[in-house]
């Protein structure tokens, strides 16, 4: 118990003293998480929409692939991405290995199926009369999609939260393709893993608390937005 108490005490000290290294890691984590969540949702949500609202050949297979990808192990994603981005890999020319961009790509690959599968489920949950009514009143494809999205706004907000949660908590791929380089690609999760291994439990716990606070802030912000739009 002392061990935990001491760790918590050190964590609070680090946070209150505005430790530049801790805040640098936190800021990078926020940057990576926001960019990766935006890209994953921008790509995944339209796909989810199409999978839920259009009938086409191969739709069931596509849904199965997306649902299976939900269980993609993060280290495997990291490994494959490492192969692609390493100097001898097909994308080696980009020079992105051990960069924050590489972490973003890994996170997008992991969050994309979440965005697609959950938004498909969200759209499927909307009463089909909403789509039909929008169409019969003359709405085109985009206006109809927007109308359906407005009805599914709570479920779609949950999709964004889930994608952000996946991205912000991801460690395997970030470690492999980011390299956990101090001051460059060290995120909260990779730092927690490192400092725990080094026995610096207080620092690891401080970073863990910041991670939880970030998740809390994002959830509260989304809930506030939902509250404003609940009329």
């Amino acid at each position, binding site marked *: 118990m002392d061990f935990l108490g001491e760790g918590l005490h050190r964590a609070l000290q680090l946070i209150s003293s505005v430790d530049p290294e801790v805040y640098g890691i936190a800021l990078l984590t926020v940057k990576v998480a926001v960019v990766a969540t935006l890209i994953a949702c921008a790509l995944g949500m339209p796909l989810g929409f199409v999978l839920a609202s259009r009938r086409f050949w191969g739709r069931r297979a596509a849904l199965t692939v997306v649902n299976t990808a939900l269980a993609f192990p993060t280290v495997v994603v990291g490994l494959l991405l490492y192969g692609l981005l390493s100097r001898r890999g097909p994308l080696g020319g980009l020079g992105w290995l051990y960069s924050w961009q590489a972490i973003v790509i890994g996170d997008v690959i992991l969050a994309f199926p979440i965005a697609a599968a959950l938004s498909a489920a969200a759209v499927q949950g909307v009463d089909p*009369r909403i789509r*039909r*009514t929008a*169409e*019969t*009143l*003359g709405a085109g494809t985009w*206006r109809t999609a927007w*109308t359906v999205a407005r009805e599914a706004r709570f479920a779609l907000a949950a999709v964004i939260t889930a994608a952000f949660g996946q991205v912000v908590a991801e460690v395997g791929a970030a470690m492999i393709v980011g390299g956990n380089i101090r001051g460059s690609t060290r995120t909260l999760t990779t730092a927690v893993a490192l400092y725990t291994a080094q026995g610096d439990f207080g620092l690891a716990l401080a970073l863990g608390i910041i991670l939880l606070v970030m998740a809390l802030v994002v959830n509260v912000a989304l809930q506030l937005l939902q509250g404003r739009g609940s*009329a």
Partner: protein
Amino acid sequence: MLELAGVRHAYEGRVVLDLERFTVAPGALIAIVGHNGSGKSTLLRLLALVERPTAGEVRWDGAVVSSPRLRPRAPARRRITLVEQRPMLFRGTVRENLAFGLVARGRRGAEAQNTIERVADRLGVTSLLARQRHELSDGEVQRVAVARALAVAPDVLLLDEPVSSADRAAAQALYAALAEERRARGLAICLASHQLEDAYRWADDIRALAEGRLSPVTPENLFRVELPAGAETKHVRVGPIGIAVTTAREGPAILAVPPTDIFVSTAPIVSSARNVFSGQVTRLGRPRPGVVHVTADVGIELIAVITEEAARDLGLAPGSPVTFAFKASAVRVF
């Protein structure tokens, strides 16, 4: 002209609609009648271009606008508007709902607001304009949905059981508003109803649907009843009157009084017919030359089919006193 040609529609392999041809001419007032599950709603969804047929085509003025391979485009859909049986309003106020179709057509500002005020007034929903959807009753939702459909001034208005949540007075008001709108700009209306009185009261053209097919027999004078046990000739209560029927059956049944088996008279009848009812003519319809449909309120609404010559000889007109008579053995039991 809106037309279904060779349409067959199936859900998970089960054919629910099979129509060689179904047309909605400009300005037509059609009622599709049939029991629940007869395919009325499916037919309206195909006509509204919000669902594609499994086989066959939907055409507008001869051009194919929907088929298994052709997804209907918004410009074609904008000429036809459907109000579903249990319509849904979008999130937002009633005013925003009425504006939806106008905004989709790029119409905003004062002109759009005038249109909204006009249709709201016509359907009696002006006082509801600022309300949210969850603040409305089912009947109000139905009226708002009809107003929302009329706001976009469609060429064809499709209504699925438009008065299912309305009381009698509200239903009359809704039909009167539709008739007024039709007079003003000649739109075609196609309504599905299982209430035959409504169909006969408001439509020029009645089409019966049974098991997904157009039925050659129009199911006039149909009544759902509970047949008592006992005697061969039974007196069954239908609304305020009792109909004598010869049948050995008992329990729930549907009675059909064939309109051609009803004798029409303007004087009291003394005859062997067990069913003699007096009332007033409410409507005279002429579905084809030489044939007159006499609708009378004899406590319930009954329809008799007579010749043009007989109608002339009897001097029938809406409001005339009339007596209907038919034999107990003429009543069919299903």
